[in-house]
């Protein structure tokens, strides 16, 4: 049973973690919060933004602050699935040759899948099992991944050359998707200052252990949420489906597929984690709103008309949020 002491400890730990990250990453508070939410919810997160915005640095800082095993996978078009998950190789020991498994970079605690949409779909799908089941199967053997485990992927906007859109099955496995925007002037000045003066950027020391993270995950799951809010979340997700009675007109017009049940789970868990990070002891409507777009924006599949007219999923989600009543 979770005690109040555990709750306070976990809350303090994650506050320290946030501050440690903030010392390296200028701005992007929301991005950092989404990363922590994903960590607390046993999920994965997808960052989208043009190169050079600090996506990789953010992930490395998080991994450093957590004191966990960090792996970075740079996705390229010629990257093969074995390059990710690992492969059996012949080894010779005491005059005997045998196959032994050489684990890939997917084996770690914090995985950075950099520019994940530059690899082919076949390679991209190599992460599916690790992301969802936290296992890796090579040949006839399945290997369990060590907890806490989180995949933080970055991708360039799809309009850029040499990119392959992520398959819907894979993209649905990301708990949240955060758009990394260009820093403001003040933030840009700070970024240049930190990178050009002194000793440069120093990754933070570990401020949390794997045990702290696992305890915090239990606390987050215990945060109560009202049944009416669960129903509200269900209506929100259903409202993203064009065939649903709750969906507004724009969803019916521009959306091919809406959010999956994973989206509802992401909303509930994200709201709980958000409540935890903000020091609340129950889920509020504000918590749901905070993670609503991040949990649903990558799960909306636009139809041809939506794609042709360049409709923004975030605009559609705004419509869903405004048109769905609490009660």
């Amino acid at each position: 049973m979770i005690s109040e002491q555990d709750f306070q400890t976990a809350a303090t730990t994650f506050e320290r973690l946030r501050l440690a990250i903030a010392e390296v990453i200028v701005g992007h508070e929301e991005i950092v919060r989404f990363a922590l939410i994903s960590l607390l919810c046993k999920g994965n997160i997808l960052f989208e933004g043009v190169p050079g915005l600090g996506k990789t640095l953010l992930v490395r800082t998080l991994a450093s602050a957590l004191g966990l095993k960090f792996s970075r996978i740079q996705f390229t078009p010629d990257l093969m699935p074995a390059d990710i998950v690992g492969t059996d190789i012949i080894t010779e020991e005491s005059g005997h040759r045998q196959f032994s498994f050489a684990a890939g970079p997917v084996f770690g605690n914090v995985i950075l899948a950099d520019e994940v949409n530059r690899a082919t779909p076949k390679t991209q799908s190599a992460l599916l099992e690790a992301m969802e089941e936290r296992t890796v199967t090579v040949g006839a053997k399945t290997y369990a991944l060590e907890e806490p485990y989180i995949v933080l992927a970055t991708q360039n906007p799809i309009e850029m050359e040499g990119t392959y859109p992520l398959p819907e099955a894979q993209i649905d496995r990301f708990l949240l998707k955060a758009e990394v925007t260009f820093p403001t002037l003040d933030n840009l000045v700070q970024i240049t200052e930190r990178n050009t003066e002194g000793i440069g950027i120093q990754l933070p020391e570990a401020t949390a252990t794997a045990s702290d993270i696992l305890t915090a995950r239990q606390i987050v799951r215990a945060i109560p949420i009202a049944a009416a809010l669960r129903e509200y979340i269900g209506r929100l997700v259903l409202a993203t489906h064009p065939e649903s009675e709750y969906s507004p007109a724009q969803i019916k017009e521009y959306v091919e597929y809406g959010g999956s049940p994973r989206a509802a789970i992401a909303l509930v868990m994200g709201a709980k984690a958000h409540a935890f990070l903000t020091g609340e002891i129950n889920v509020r409507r504000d918590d749901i709103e905070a993670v609503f777009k991040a949990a649903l924006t990558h799960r909306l599949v636009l139809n041809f008309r939506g794609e042709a007219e360049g409709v923004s999923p975030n605009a559609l989600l705004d419509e869903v949020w405004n048109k769905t009543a609490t009660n």
Partner: protein
Amino acid sequence: MRFDFSRFLLQVEHRLRRFRGLSLACRLLCYGSIACVAVTLGLRWLAPNLAHELALLALLIPFSLAAAAFLLGWSKPPDLPHLLLQLDDQLDSGARISSLYEVRTRGQASIFREQLETLVEAISADWKRGITLSSRTFGFLSAGIAGVLVACAILLFPIAATSEQPAQSEASTRQTPMSSTIERAQDNAHTTSDESPAPLELSEEAILSQQDATEELTQTRPNDELSLDSILDDLSTLSRSQTQVDARPTSEELIDLAEAQEQARQALSEMLKDLQERMQNNPRPLTQQEAQALQHQAAQTGNPEIEEQIDDLVDEPNPDQIGEKLQDLMARLDPDSAETETSPESSGENGDGSRQDTPQSTEISGDEEAGQRFLERAAKQLEEQANAETEQDGNSHQQPSRQDEEDSQETSEDGSTDVRMARDHDDLSQTGGEEGNAGYSDDDPAPGEVGFIREEAPSTIGAEGEFINEFVTKGVPVEIASSDAQGDTHIIDFERMESILHERGLPEEALDSVRRYFELITQPGGGS
């Protein structure tokens, strides 16, 4: 003291039920009041005689609907999760109440339950502001009350109107012949007043007195005892009471009343005079129409003695006695005329055409003089004709026909004939035949004439028209065979025929035969 969340939930639930019932009740009160107004309007226009106790039942519509709605709203159990989340939103409590309800429902024992209970306890002190009646509910309530008041006003308005005039309502609900007769009599009285040069203005007191008289008449006699005589008595009583009522008020009204009565007396006098002339020509009892007209006119004079005399006259079957009573009545109504009648030498002096100055005996003597003058003129013409015959031999048989041709030419020539007729007429007036200006002309009809047919004799009736006109007394009707009769279908009596026959030079024996023929056909049962 530990916070009792269950009790808190019960209070919230009761308040919500109560308010939900009230909200629904107010809404249906509004709709019911609209229906109530519609029903009351329908009752008022479609069933105005419906007892107002029954009509008041319509007021139960909105209240019964509201009561049923309240019970319905109260009986339906609330959806507590949504209710509590709504309460959280109203109190801006961050879904703590609903979260605590969820934790308690699941039976989880965690740190969050205790913390939530602590927070909810702090919120619960002011929880009632989270469940209130909306302004829309108050709007429905106001509209419903207004609708009910409107319905009450619609229902009570006709009741108040009828209670203001209970006597009139009772009288109108009876609708007896007596009341209708009295109403007609009142209408006649008002009509007579309107016809007078200065219409009478009844004061409020006079109207009330008249209403009292009407009520007295309607209440003193049962409906089944009504008869024509009783109705006529009531008529005269009402006229008398109205006369008395009219005589009450101001001096101006008294003057107007006196003028009206004087005009009624004059009209009655002229009616009697006409009647006397007719009775002289054809002695007979009075017809019922004449009797009623006289009685009605006598009632307008406001003189009970005259009314009694008229009643005696009407009841008199003997024509001779009728003549005498007519004479007495005229003497009472017009003493100057009576003096003129008693002094024959004054008859010739009063030739100014005034009706009061032309007694019937003078008219008769005037007729005779006109006849004698006509005979003299005819004899003169015959003499001139004889002289012409002596001068023109063999033309004696043609002369009358030539004279006829001249007569016919004169008749066809409007101007010459009319001039001679007018001259003759003036002669009659100057010699005492003042009937032509007796006051009865098309331009000046006599007031109060009822039942008399007044027709001017045609100016020409064939070739003998002028002779007839010589003997037709102005103001005395010429009997017409039918309503669509033309000028050549007049029925003439022997006196008129005798003039024509004299003009034609009929022998006396033949004239006697014609007289006997007329006497024979004018006797009762003889035709004509």
